[in-house]
């Protein structure tokens, strides 16, 4: 087996429980070099949680995650460093450092991890910002730009070290259709053109079908369907059809019950009258 056949990312029997509830239940899939995998699924189905396991910031209850052939699950923070330098990650909100300017945010990985001169770094920053359509925004601060712009700066930052692999959490949500197309175009250029691998969490179906070479649909904590975009489009699974067509009626329940719901809401729900009481107390 030569290196290019070996999967870049291997997930095997991944289970993650919060308390007794399995948010992710027995997830297995592989991503090969050059693939663009889109992970789809309704809000709160565990997509972001899955992504956090793939980058090593959450540890699974059981199962393994292998990135670049190395087992992440047993690693300590320090051992993760060389691996983290090989991939970029775009967070849902951009996750820019509020105390730094746009340019400094993009320059940060370069300053921390390379010996490049200030001039070289400045040039790279300019080039990366140009790629996401933000030329001339270097000196603004994150609170002076819109949410969509933050996300694009986040993308520029994720690409600063020219990673082999890019993880993105909802790269196009909150962007207008034209900017969505620009970002998709950029993803295509980097993946098909330069051989970068991408793992994208998205529920924007237009964008997903435009960039994906493989797709996974999550639901009920497990994988509902996986395959190429054509296979997914032709899937006979009614849940898949409902999701990709965005129909309100179908097998996917509209309201999740309390214990099916995502872990973010693991705080006990407060009865409404108590919430109202709290509200009055706070607003005086």
């Amino acid at each position, binding site marked *: 087996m030569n290196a290019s056949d070996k999967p870049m990312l291997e997930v095997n029997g991944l289970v993650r429980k919060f308390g007794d509830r399995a948010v992710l239940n027995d997830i297995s899939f592989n991503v090969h070099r050059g693939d663009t995998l889109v992970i789809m699924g309704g809000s709160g189905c565990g997509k972001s949680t899955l992504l956090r396991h793939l*980058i090593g*910031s959450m540890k699974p209850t059981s199962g393994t995650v292998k990135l670049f052939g190395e087992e992440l699950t047993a690693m300590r*923070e320090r051992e*993760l*460093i*060389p691996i*983290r*330098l090989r991939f970029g*990650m775009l*967070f*849902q*909100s951009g*996750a*820019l*450092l*509020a105390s730094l300017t746009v340019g400094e945010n993009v320059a*940060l*990985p370069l300053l*921390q*991890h390379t010996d490049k001169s200030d001039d070289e770094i400045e040039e790279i920053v300019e080039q990366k910002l140009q790629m996401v359509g933000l030329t001339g925004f270097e000196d603004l601060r994150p609170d002076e730009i819109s949410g969509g712009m933050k996300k694009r700066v986040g993308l520029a*930052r994720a690409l600063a070290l020219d990673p082999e692999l890019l993880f993105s959490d909802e790269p196009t949500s909150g962007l207008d259709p034209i900017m969505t197309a620009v970002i998709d175009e950029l993803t295509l250029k980097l993946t098909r053109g330069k051989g970068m691998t991408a793992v994208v969490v998205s529920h924007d179906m237009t964008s997903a079908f435009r960039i994906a070479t493989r797709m996974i649909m999550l639901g009920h904590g497990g994988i509902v369907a996986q395959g190429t975009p054509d296979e997914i489009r032709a899937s006979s699974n009614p849940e898949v059809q409902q999701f990709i067509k965005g129909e309100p009626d179908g097998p996917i329940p509209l309201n999740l019950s309390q214990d099916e719901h995502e872990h973010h809401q693991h*705080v006990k729900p407060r009865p409404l009258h108590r919430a109202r009481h709290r509200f009055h107390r706070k607003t005086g």
Partner: protein
Amino acid sequence: MVFIGVRAAPMVALTAFSVGVTLAMQAAHSLESLGAQMYIPDLVMLTLLREMGPVLIAVIVIGRSGSAVAAELGTMKVSEEIEALEVMAIDPVQFLVVPRFLAMMIMLPALTIFGNYIGILGGWAVCVFALDFNTAGYVLEALQSAEPWDLYSGMIKSVVFAWIVITIACNAGLTVEGGAEGVGQATTTSVVQALLAMLVTNAVLTGIFFFAG
């Protein structure tokens, strides 16, 4: 560093001056009945150097900078910034905590020295303008009363307080959970915990210095 140190200076000055003035007046009142008014400078000097200086300046820094550090780090935590740093293989402790730690360790003792001076100046103001002291007399009496150890013990306290304040503030900030409300709670917690820890430590340190010295 600028935030913790330089911008806190006016507030520290005002507080220290008020304390100096108050101490001198209280001392004047109490010592008068003993006919020992000449010891007012001693009392102001020693109280400031050993106790009031380090403690009050720490209180100000807890309220001002400790809370700010907790809130800032907490906000970074809830807005995924800390996680983003980790994913970029940048150690958040090295990148965020170490500079704040160093700033606090340098600036709190520096502010304490500054506050001591201003407090002594406050005492001087009362003695010279309201009581029968002249400047030379005040300064001489004050300097005679204090030994280097009085200053050092205050400085030791101040360094220990700096360590307590910044450790509690950073810890509170980095362990925030649950959005804006969590940040608010962490900020409050950091102030309350830091105040309590600082006051208890002060008592312990005074005890150690008292019995050891």
